[in-house]
């Protein structure tokens, strides 16, 4: 895919916010792809975990918003423990999710979970799912 990089985007509000929420230095990543290689959900994603870091630091907010990747991440931390640069991608994924959730845009609606599922699902599934996918 081709993207346009501009100084305006590199220093955008989006980049500032995800850095602040995640507490991560996006520049340490050297795009080796260990995160994508270790991610159990990568095959379900449209952008790989590695690509998310690159697009995020280039300030390409729209490309990330159009991708489902951060909503497929299961926060399993396989990326985190395998990164040779000590970058905690799980925190970047969380920061990007929160930028949406904090605008009061939920990813799931609890009403969509059927009463049968609610009866069956362990409480930790409901609590963690709603924490990750609703504001």
């Amino acid at each position: 895919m081709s993207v346009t990089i501009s100084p305006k985007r590199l220093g955008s509000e989006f980049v500032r916010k995800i850095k602040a929420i995640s507490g991560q230095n996006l520049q340490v990543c050297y795009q080796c792809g260990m995160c994508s290689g270790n991610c159990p959900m990568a095959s379900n994603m449209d952008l790989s975990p590695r690509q998310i870091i690159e697009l995020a630091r280039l300030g390409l907010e729209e490309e990330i918003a159009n991708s489902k990747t951060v909503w497929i991440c299961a926060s399993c931390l396989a990326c985190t423990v395998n990164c040779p640069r000590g970058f905690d991608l799980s925190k970047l994924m969380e920061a990007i999710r929160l930028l949406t959730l904090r605008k009061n845009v939920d990813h799931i609606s609890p009403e969509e979970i059927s009463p049968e599922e609610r009866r069956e699902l362990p409480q930790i599934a409901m609590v963690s799912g709603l924490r990750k996918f609703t504001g």
Partner: protein
Amino acid sequence: MKTKARNLEEPAIASMEVLGVKLEEISRWNCCGAVYSLAGDDLIRQVAPVRNLIRVKEQGKNEVVTLCSFCLNTLKRANLLMKEDAEKRNTLNSFMDEEVDYSGEVKVAHLLEVLRDEIGWEALAQRVKLPLRELKVAPYYGCTLLRPREVAIDSVDNPTILHEFLKALGTTPVYFPYATRCCGSYQIVSNPDDISAHAWDILSSALSHGAEALVLTCPLCDYNLGQGQKELMKKHNGFKGMPLFYFTQLLALALGLDPALCRFELNYGEPELLLRERNLLL
């Protein structure tokens, strides 16, 4: 634990009593929030786990033991935050004005660590009355016992704690490459179809390495790997289901406790059938 994972909790309490450890429930505990907040700027989400740790301190105890690996992860990470980040600790302590100040003094451990560090594998092996010799089980660790590194209960890259546990119970654990691969976790609420595919990857890998059952610690792993098995049997010719055990059930069984308290009827994959075949259950 009290409603959907009674087969994890009840055999744990009974087994530990036999081993001379009396587990005492935290009074006024609250849900820890299940997942540790990964955002640096929403401290409010740390209040729930930290409150539990304060309750432990109030009860005059200095260690809290969890059976659930999600609770272990969330409590242990929140505890580290309170210990290491002075600014956030002060903010949280000021916010929880009605509580005593807390700075990470309670030790957070998983029950497996108590078995390893306080009882010991050798001592445990000596207490075994019914060795699980014939049972071919593969340990499945999942994520939250091992990641991130700073809260891992064992080696992140090559964990052996569940393997050692099974050896103490008299059986040879089966190794398979997906023992620490995520089951999909909370994605079950939004992507159940993906979870089913992940469950198949994990179950079929364990099967192909010679396991006839999995042993696990987490109620969400149990659900994600268990609830879809009937559908997987329809989809994959020859797959007859795979029993899932909580580690505490195998502990109680091997210690010779009444199998009724293991509540095998709540498990996925018909474990009683397998246990009878192996002469481990009447």
